[in-house]
């Protein structure tokens, strides 16, 4: 069971959270929507990075403070590398 550090509540068991999906997918603006092709829209709607490695994703502390936040998590080891607030860009996780 993952141990996720809610930026507000601290570490809690995974079952208190709900998984969202890949983070940093910007919703096209109305102007973009009006000019983009169906294929481009499909890209926004459905296409996912699904990386084997570090995944930037969002979670919500649904059984706690109801806050959404971002997580950088390794999809092979399940190691949580970083938790960072909504709105913050994906961290640069160059090897230290």
């Amino acid at each position: 069971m993952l141990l996720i550090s809610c930026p507000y509540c601290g570490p809690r068991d995974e079952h208190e959270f709900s998984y969202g999906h890949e983070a940093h997918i910007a919703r096209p603006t109305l102007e973009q929507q009006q000019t983009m092709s169906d294929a481009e829209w499909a890209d926004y709607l459905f296409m996912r990075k699904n990386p084997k490695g570090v995944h930037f994703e969002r979670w919500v502390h649904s059984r706690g403070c109801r806050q959404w936040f971002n997580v950088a998590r390794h999809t092979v080891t399940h190691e949580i590398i970083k938790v960072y607030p909504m709105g913050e860009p994906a961290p640069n996780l160059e090897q230290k």
Partner: protein
Amino acid sequence: MSAQKNRLATGGRIDRSRPVRFTFDGKAYYGYQGDSLASALLANGVTLVGRSFKYHRPRGIVSAGAEEPNALIEVGTGNRREPNTRAPQIELYDGLTTASQNRWPSLDFDLGAVNSCLSRFFPSGFYYKTFKWPKDGWLFYEKFIRRMAGLGTGSTEADPDRYDKVYGHCDVMVVGGGPAGIAAALAAGRAGARVVLVDEQSELGGSLLSERDRSIDGKPAMDWVAAAEAELAAMPEVKVLTRTTAFAYLDANMLSCVERITDHIGPNASGPRQRLWRIRAREVILATGSIERPLVYSDNDRPGCMLASAGRTYVNRYGTAPGQRVVILTNNDTAYQTALDFAAAGVSVAAVVDLRANPQGALVQATRDKGIEVIANSAITHVKGAKQVKEVDVMSLSADGKSVTGGVRHIYCDTVLSSGGWQPTVHLHSQTRAKVVWNEELHAFVPGPVMPGQNNVSVGAAKGVFGLADCLAEGHEAGAEAARRFGFTNAAGSAAGAEAEPAAEPLRPMWIVPSDKPVGQGGKHFVDYQNDVTAADVMLAHREGYLSVEHLKRYTTMGMATDQGKTSNVNALAIMAGLRGMNIPEVGTTTFRPPYTPVTFGVFAGPDKGDFLDPIRKTPIHQWHADHGAAFECVGQWHRAWYYPKAGESMHDAVNREVKATRDSVGIVDASTLGKIDIQGPDAAWFLNMVYTNAWTKLEPGKCRYGFMCGEDGMVFDDGVTSRIAENHFHMTTTTGGAARVLSWLEEWHQCEWPDRKVYFTSVTEQWAVFALNGPNSRKVLEKVVSGIDLSEEAFPFMSWRDCEVAGVKARIFRISFTGALSFEVNVPPSYALHVWRALMSAGEEFNITPYGTEALHVLRAEKGFVIVGQETDGTMTPQDLGFEWIIGKAKPDFIGRRSHLRSDTARPDRKHLVGLLTENPQEVLPEGAQIVEHVKDKPPMTMIGHVTSSYWSPNANRSIAMAVIKNGRNRMGQTVYLPYDGKVVAARIAKTDFLQDGAAANA
């Protein structure tokens, strides 16, 4: 009842003053308090205890612990019958009833044993090659195969016992209560850390329980254990759990453990039977010890063939000889300790057969000094005796150790103990997906680097460190270090000391002990006892190209039995490595998976049985419904009143009565389960514009509006009425099932996409109980109990709301309708809900006010063609498909799902549309889900154009009514379509969905 013929006069940790009666296969025996079933059977001279999985070979006890592959026993009877339990881990209690398994008619005479005679025809994977004829013959053969397989027999009665679950937390978790683990717990505990120590055995001590004369800190080892136990018990932040197996090492240092609370007391004990612990530790110390490997020699599965360390445990711990005369076969020094202990206990050791050319270690010397013969450079080539070892053949090994030479020595004995070296118990380490590495000195896998995020360390035998003093020191250091790391600075004391063991000579790896015949052509060299996998099977897998260990495992089923290969996996993969000419680490291990030992299903469920499987949510007046005979319907977790049958009424009667009364006069329904969300902030209206498809800016305070929400894919996912309370304040309602989903949806968009928008969402679903009065007389009823407002059409028009009092209680009423009839939705505080409901009921008495349930509610809304999200929709319908083109805010720039509506398939005009269906025969009520075709054929396949989403008898239209989604349906009005189902075909006409107008007209 015979005497315990193998019981030693003295010694062991059993209490000879407390005899315990038990039965095995119907026969009664005595053992002593402190015995395991295995030790008690051995004491009574019972060596044949079971039959193997495939060949039904007679089998005896092999080990004295969790690794037992053979002695699988059925414990208990009736609803408590439990198959496949390991005899060495069953503690004896008075009245214990046990039986052997996988035999018929009896253990002694098992018809299935013909498999053994035919075993030549049943090599690994034989079933893949046979039973292929005739084409559908497998179902026939399968019956027999299934019956032969499957070991024990499960009970078909409900398990009567109860189980418990608990969460735990600690700084340091120690798994294994041997010397290393105890030392770790002591050090961490003394330093002040919160510690949990678990051990699967009934008492602490680990391997020390099997020792004869070891001492620690100058006192007998078990005295040291007792002192440590007392010290640990006195530490308030230390918890010691015996009879507790850590069976799974999960993400982020969580260990699942099962505590056996009453299994050793028997069915009469009170309290839960077992408890599931989910313990989150900051650091885990794995002190899980090691498991001895048997040697793979010919006929090594005869009852009486046992691990050398197990023999030692039986003698030292249980005061029981495993037999009367023992031969030991070994490739290392540790088995000599067994010989010495046997000699000390007066059990006859006929000889020690050593695979090594010239063993000269201290223990070997000591053994010789005791007058026990050591036959070096030799192998056991045969074990005779079908149901009990009678004799072994011993021959000399050739120079390369690959074959045997010279004459045969026959040695009479009833027990053969073997030791092929020790394998650290790396299971939990490996479950974290950390690697193991091959240690060339130990010829065993030891733990490799740990995984990131999994803070653990292996110590003692679990790490391949076998000296007692070293185990104590390592354990101590690991415990102290962990405590230090977490800031606990009390003195951890110093490590306990022990004398060093005499130096041992290296082990001689010999993965198959040769016999006088080629492997597979004489006796059988068993590798995996339980699943009957032999060295010849490994060779066959190799020959047939199943080379990877994973293929080897699956093709031969080696390591897949209930012991998960604890004694066999390394032997098997080493044999494969030899065949492939590879190093053992190159071949690798199979994957270690939870559980370490099998865990009862019941304990995972814990106490959450029956109604606790999933909470039942109840409305504030649930009890009233129950008292008035309501049948309930599950809607999500809610239980909602479905209909209220009166005496003698069928469901159909009751629903018709409720529907009719509502249309004719007045009905009342408990709609408290509707989702309600309070929305406040200057951007509230902007937000509603984004999440609903229609426009909200112009809605005035005091007014209500209906809307659809779509996913970004354009498909409807919820609907409801939202009311403007004040300029910046809205009250949203959602479907019952959608309440939680919609709130998180709003929060997600707000927090993630539009965080600058000033708006707050709060669930108020349960702040209000909701009672909807419907029907022409609803106003008259309400008038009698309402105060503070004028209910007239002019003062309180449709699609508006008012605050007021009802029956003296603060209330909010919405003039919205889900029936098409005059309707008032009365919202009141739940604590007064019953009071208000009763007041409405008495006010309505003169109008025959009728409570109705969800079924009538469905009929009433269907009569007017109102949709239910989740019934008319299934995640593939747009608002346009449902005929709500008008609800799409054309002028509105953006809303969630808008862009998707423009995609080529979504924008098609001939998608499936929601329409009405009128059966040709008005009496015929279609089943919901019935499929619709244009052209009926004699038999399927037929092309379907849609299906029925809702269908009822409408007492008001006095005919059957249905809604359906049909391809291009709106452009097919009046067309007759067909519904083939349940062996008949019903014709129906596509119509509009207002059945009180159109349906009634159609009837006329």
